[in-house]
Structures are given as C-alpha cells and as structure tokens.
C-alpha cells in the first residue's frame, strides 16, 4: 500500500537510484520509495552480465547483476519501499508525483525530496541520420543486449556494429560467445571511444575486426537488413568517395552514444545544461528546483558504474537532509482554516515560532454581512486562542485579527487554527 507522503522518492532503480535510496535511509529519512519501470530492481545492470563493475567501490571485479544484487539486498534490509513495473507520468515543482502501474493504478503522492535517477537512453539511427531503407534488423546495442541476455533471443546471426563504445565492444564479444558472426566494428572517430581493456578482451581476443575512421553510409534490404555499406571518413567525418564497401549482414547494432533521459526533469521545471543534456546541479546534486536532486547518467554520462553509485550516495544524502529539514519546518507550521462565515484567511500557514518575535496579524474576508456585534474567534478545536470584537462584519470590508505573543503556548499544541464569526 502506497503512502500519501514520503520523505524521499527515488525515480529509477539503476545504480544511482539504489545508492540514493540506501543513503537517504541511512541519513535518517523515514519513508523512502523507489519507483521503477521494470518488473525488478537494478535497471540496466541486470542486462550487463559482463564483469568489470565494482573495482573502485568493492575492489572486486563483479558482473553487473552481482553488483546490483549487493545494493538490492541493502534496499530490502533497510526497508525501502518499492513500486515496480510503474511509470511516473508527471512531477510538479512542488514535488507532487503522478505515477501509474498495473498494480497500483493511478497513484498520486507527495515527496519532501525527490532524486531523479532515470539514467540515459541510447542515440538512435535517426539521430546520426544513416541513409538507406528502414528494414527490421537495426537495433541499438542496449536493445539487442536485452533480447540476448534477458529475453533469451538472438536478434540476428551476422552483425555489423557501429561504434566502439564499451557497449558496442561488449556486445561484439557477447554475440560471438553465442555463436553469431560479428563481421566488423566500425568507429567514425580516428580513435577508440571505449576502454582499452574492452578492446583487448572483447575484440582482439576473439579476432573481431575494428575499423577506425569508418561509418555506415547506407542500410540495404527492404524487409530485413541484407547488408550495410561502410565507408571511410575524412577528418571532418565526411565520407571519402571510392572507399565504399558492401558488408553482407542481417543486423546492424548501433552503439553511437548515450543521452541523459530528462523528460521528467523538464516536466518538473528543472533547468537543463545544453552541453551535458542533464540538470544543472549544486555540490549536493540539487537541481534548480529546491528539493529535487539528480544523480548518475541522468546528470551526465559516466564511464564507470562505481562513480554513478558515488553520485547516488551524495544525492541520497542531500535529499534526506532536505527532507528532514522540511519535516522540521512543516512540524512548526500551523494551518489557518476558515470556519463559520469566513471565506479565506491570509496567511494560509504560520510558523509557530514567529510568535516568539511578535504578534501575528491575520487578514480575512467574511461570506455574509452581519449588522450587529460579533466575535471573530481563533480556535484550536474548541479551545479559544484569541478573539476580537467587531461592531459588524461585511464582505466588502477586510477583517483583521492579531494573534498575540502571549498565545505562544496555546498555539504550540495546535495543528490547525480555525477562525469563525459568532454573534455576541
């Protein structure tokens, strides 16, 4: 059962989200909720079955799922709540969250602090505008990785991979391990864009050819990919005529970059840096919207998961501190509620401590005129806090009542003060 209000809500349960939730709880946040779109925690780590994770944090070389499992265990031990297979539709700058899932239905909840940890998405064919047909068999490396490692299906038998980033190289080895032929890895830059160790253990070790300064200039095949045309590029990334080569294959994998995923951040009014594509953040990972924090690839794209985890810890800690301060601040607040014959009161809330400094003036309007003597009463439940006599009240004339400093003790006990008009 979801609560109406949480100290910290974390959106996304990849390495950043898991770390943020854990650290928020450890810092003292009481109710912490993770909202995750998949049916299980861990995010993309669950499909990154290769090792190479955790060297910085655990001084161990772990596969992605094992790295995730350590944090998932902590999330469970600490009593962090989770809403899985769910999607956040909207976040307001006031940290009101709309989320839906098959199981919870349409849910609305409030967060004292939010950590955005939605990660990133892959650049697509269109973003690099590869000419040619639009057949089946063009996948981003991450989509192919999910098919191969989670769903249990190979998206093809003969592959060309565009991009020498880590995901591209890791998929080259992975597909080779499962009996596919990787014809070529092409890289438009004159240098490798992933880690050198991945070049060795993913390509060199298994004789997968890499061509630098090359790209795909055309996709061929109407229904399914039949071949791609590769071409060498000059220093301005323009194709060099005469260097075209047709490489027969049934699948083209794209590993051409990652972009922080900030659709929700925009909805929440978070300002984004056009260079990183992620939110502007301060030293505690707070975004331009107070109480909304961000961590991991949603901020900028990292190359080591360990650093994503560190960023998650930092954001979780900051979010918890913000939530605790917010809790204290609101605990000191008393609501001012219109009672009989009162249309509205300004201010709507009042800091109880303000009475330590001075009297506090309430301004209000009545609903109906009463042309005789009345009391304007301020009450905590049935207990009178203060009252003022008026010769009459009229909607066109504003009424003011001062709560005196001597009411300090009476107000401390109240959650809500009601103001009403009664005939004397």
């Amino acid at each position: 059962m979801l609560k109406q209000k949480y100290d910290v809500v974390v959106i996304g349960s990849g390495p950043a989200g898991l770390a943020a939730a854990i650290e928020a709880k450890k810092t003292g946040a009481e109710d912490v909720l993770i909202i995750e779109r998949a049916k299980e925690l861990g995010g993309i780590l669950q499909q990154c079955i290769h090792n190479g994770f955790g060297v910085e944090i655990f001084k161990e070389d772990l596969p992605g799922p094992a790295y995730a499992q350590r944090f998932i265990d902590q999330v469970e031990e600490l009593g962090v709540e989770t809403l899985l297979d769910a999607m956040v539709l909207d976040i307001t700058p006031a940290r009101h969250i709309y989320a839906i899932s098959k199981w919870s239905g349409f849910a609305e909840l409030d967060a004292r602090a939010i950590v955005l940890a939605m990660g990133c998405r892959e650049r697509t064919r269109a973003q690099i505008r590869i000419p040619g047909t639009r057949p089946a068999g063009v996948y981003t490396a991450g989509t192919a990785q999910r098919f191969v490692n989670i769903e249990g299906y190979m998206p093809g038998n003969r592959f060309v991979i565009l991009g020498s980033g880590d995901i591209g190289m890791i998929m080259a080895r992975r597909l080779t391990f499962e009996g596919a032929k990787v014809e070529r890895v092409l890289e438009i830059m004159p240098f490798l864009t992933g880690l050198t160790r991945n070049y060795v253990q993913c390509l060199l070790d298994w004789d997968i050819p890499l061509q630098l300064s090359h790209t795909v200039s055309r996709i061929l095949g109407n229904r399914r990919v039949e071949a791609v045309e590769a071409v060498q590029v000059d220093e301005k990334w323009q194709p060099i005529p005469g260097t075209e080569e047709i490489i027969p294959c049934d699948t083209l994998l794209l590993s051409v970059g990652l972009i922080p995923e900030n659709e929700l951040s925009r909805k929440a009014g978070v300002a984004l840096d056009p260079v990183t594509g992620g939110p502007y953040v301060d030293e505690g990972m707070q975004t331009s919207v107070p109480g909304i924090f961000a961590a991991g690839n949603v901020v900028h794209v990292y190359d080591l998961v360990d650093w994503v985890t560190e960023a998650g810890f930092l954001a979780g800690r900051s979010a918890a501190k913000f939530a605790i301060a917010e809790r204290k601040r609101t605990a000191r607040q008393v609501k001012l509620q219109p009672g009989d014959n009162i249309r509205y009161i300004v201010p709507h809330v009042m800091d109880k401590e303000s009475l330590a400094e001075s009297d506090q003036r309430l301004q209000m309007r009545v609903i109906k005129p009463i042309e005789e003597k009345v009391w304007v009463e301020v009450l905590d439940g049935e207990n009178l806090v203060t009252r003022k006599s008026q010769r009459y009240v009229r909607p066109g004339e504003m009424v003011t009542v001062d709560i005196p400093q001597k009411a300090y003790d009476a107000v401390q006990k109240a959650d809500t003060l009601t103001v009403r008009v009664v005939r004397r």
Partner: protein
Amino acid sequence: MAKKNYDVIIIGAGVVGSMIARFLSRYKLDILLIEKDADVGMGASSANTAIVHAGYDPVPGSLKAIMNVAGNKMWDTLAGELNFPFERRGDYVVAIGDEEVPLLDELWERGVKNGVPGMIMLSGDEVRRREPNINPEVSGALWASTGGICDPFAVVIAAAENAVMNGVTLMLETAFEDFVMEGNRIVAVKTNRGTFGCRWAINCAGLYSDVVMHKAGVRPEFKITPRKGEYYVFDRAEITINNVLFPVPTPISKGILVTTTLHGNTIIGPNAQEIEDKEDRSVTRDGLEEVWQGARKLVPKLDLRHVIAVFAGLRPGGNAPCETPGVNYNKDYIIEIPAKVQGFVNLGGIESPGLTSAPAIAQRVVELLKDAGEKLEEKRDWDPIRPARPRFRDLSPEEQKILIRNDPRYGRIVCRCESVTEGEIVAEIHAPIPARTYDAIKRRTWLGTGRCQGGFDTPRVVEILARELGVSMLEVTKKGPGSEFLARPTKDVEG
C-alpha cells in the same frame, strides 16, 4: 475457378481504396478489398506531409483541382463520423524576400479560380507575429484558413475499419496478379491467394495503378513515375511550429515545407526525386541535404541535433492529360469507367493532394457506378460511425484513473516517450482490422515514434504481440513476413 464471387473488388487499400470501400459499404454490395502489404495504407498513404490542402495549388480546371477543393470540404464530417484526429489550422505560403511576392499573387489567382474559400494575404510583420520561428526576412504570405493537418494512418485505418464493420471483406497480403476477361468484360481478379469473381473491379493500386490498368488493356501509354520525398521529424520538446508553412511552389512540386504533426513534432520535407523503383523508400544523403537546405530557408532556427527520425515516401506521379478543353496539363488524375472495358473503374496518378481528395474521389466513384446503371440500394443498417478507442495520453487524470480501474493493462506504459499503454496495444491487436505487426501498432498508437525510436518499447511489444497472437516471439515481424525481429533462441546454436 473463382473461389468466391463479389459485386466489387477494390485493388489496393491505401487512402483511396479504403475510402471507396467505406463509401460503397453503404450499399447492398458484396465487396472485397485486397491489399498486397501486411497492413492498410502502406504505400503513398504511409509517408507524406499529412496535410489537408486548401486547393490553391492545382492547375485550374484540372480534375486534381476539382477533387482537392471538393475533398477538402468533406473532411469535417468525415473526421466526426470516423473519429480520427483532424485540425483545420490553416496554412501559409511564405514569400522570402521581395522577389517572391508576385508568386503569391499567382497562387491567389489560382485559388480564386479553383473556388478556395477563406484566403487572406498577410504582411511580413503579421506572419512574424503569428509564427515566431520563421525566417525574419519573410515578406508576406498567402493564408488559407481551410488548410488542415491530420494523421494519414489514422484516416486510412478508420475508413477501412468502418468499411469492414459494414461488411466489406479485407484481405491483406493479397497481391493483384491479373484480370480474367470474358470478351471485353472483367469477370474475376487473380491474386496470389486465388481468383475471385466480380462484376466490378476498381483500380486503387497507387504506385502500381499503371500496371493494373495495362492488364485490363486500358491506357497503354500511362506511366507512373514514382517521385521520392524525404523527410525529417524533430523532437517536439525542442522546437514547435504552429501551422503549415509552404515555400512558394516550383514547377514540379509544392516545395520543401515546414509543418507540424498533430502530436506537435515539427516535420520538414519533401524533396522530389523521380525514380524507377516502386519500392525504393530509402533515404539518401543528397536528398536529406536538399531537404535541410530548403527547410532552413523558411525556419533558420532548426537544429539537426533535434532530429528524431528520417523517412522517405513515394508519390505515384502519372502522365494523364487533363480532359477539360483548353487546359494544358498532363499530370492529372484519372477517375473513369473506360469505354472499351466493362466492369472496370479505373483510377490512376492519384498523387498529392490525393489524401485531401480521397473522400471526393470516393463520392465520384459512387456517381460513376450509378451512371453506369448500378442500382446502389442503401442498407438500412449502415453505420457511418467508427468509434474511437481510448488514447491514454489524451485523457485527463480523472479519465485515466477510470480507464486503469476498469482495465489495469492501461496502467502499464510500454512506450515511455509517447505514453502508450499495454491496454491500447492489446486493443489494436484485437481491433476489427487486427494490428499484427510492430509497424501496424506503431501507425495506430504512435508508439516508437518519439525520441528513443522504439529502443525501449520494442522488446515489450514483441512480447505482447507474441502473447496476444499466440505465436512465438521468433514469428513476430516489423512489417510482415521476411521482417522478423529475432533470429533464434540465444542458446540454440546451429552445428
């Protein structure tokens, strides 16, 4: 021998064939609609500017002009009955610099002759005020209030679906091969799925309309020359355009324009390249460059980094001379019952503004049949209304709550960019015209059309299609047989 006899066989389920099927479904006729592809609307109807043209562009006196203006007037009623999204936002033809202004006057003249209502000439200042992203050197514009935008897939699907609801038989993956003639009369249509008898055959084959009419021995000189148009789609979070912006036209096309989808994505294109191959929808480097340069003339602020898709479509350009005396024009529409063949309604060269014209063309076909002596008795139970299915993203939070409460599958978002739910996908798979491929679902729901271009939803949709169709994930296709997504289970290695 013929498997079954129909009164009417419509060859091709693009917007024209589907619209004719829908108009004829009103009468007591046994109708078969055949389509060679795995879905309706896969040809010229599938990749175009999605504009309902006002009608100031076609040559006055041409059938194109008549159909355009008549068709345009029918869209409000049609959108209401068939429940597809359509907005009459108006369109602009924009002159950049002083030398283009006289061309606007020419268009105005044409529009007046064609009977286009609601045209206004605007000053450069007024255009800049209305469309802030436009080239500041704009010197004026012709504004036509009757221009509109639609979702062409939705139109074709709604028309075909309403036809099917009213008794039309639709056969997909059924390709026309030849006619069976008795003397000069068509008595049956041969397809890859057998031969079907008919009293009337209607040529709605679009890019292949020349091939079909030649098989009937009609107009041997008629030739379709496919004209390729390439397009870019932009991320709606980055740039928005309020209306359709045309440049002043060139002799061969309406030019490279800047427009918006009903979903708010800016679209630029098309160029116009004549080719031979009727299936070549490949995007080319040169073509994209041409579109880019052309569109930037209208909206210099466009940024290539915000492109989320590129695609190409083919217009079925014909070479039929206009039959109105005194009008010298040789790319007109053909809508006729040829004298020398009986039982044949022949259409050809229905290129832009074919989408706009489709309802008027369908109405014209009904009249041609009446003139040929068909009785066309109305069915008492004909239902012109095609109900819309819920679109989660268009609903208010309250409506969303109710939808999810009644069917929790609407609570699971499968396409995050466009907020398409599992409930909507399942509904399309089990609709009167079942969506059986990924692309069919994409065209109906807009899933996979956002900035991640299906990266997130593809595995999930493949899974849902397999489950709902009761097939293996290996059998699920992008757009029909031969376009399977997956090759084999990970652990089944040959040899």
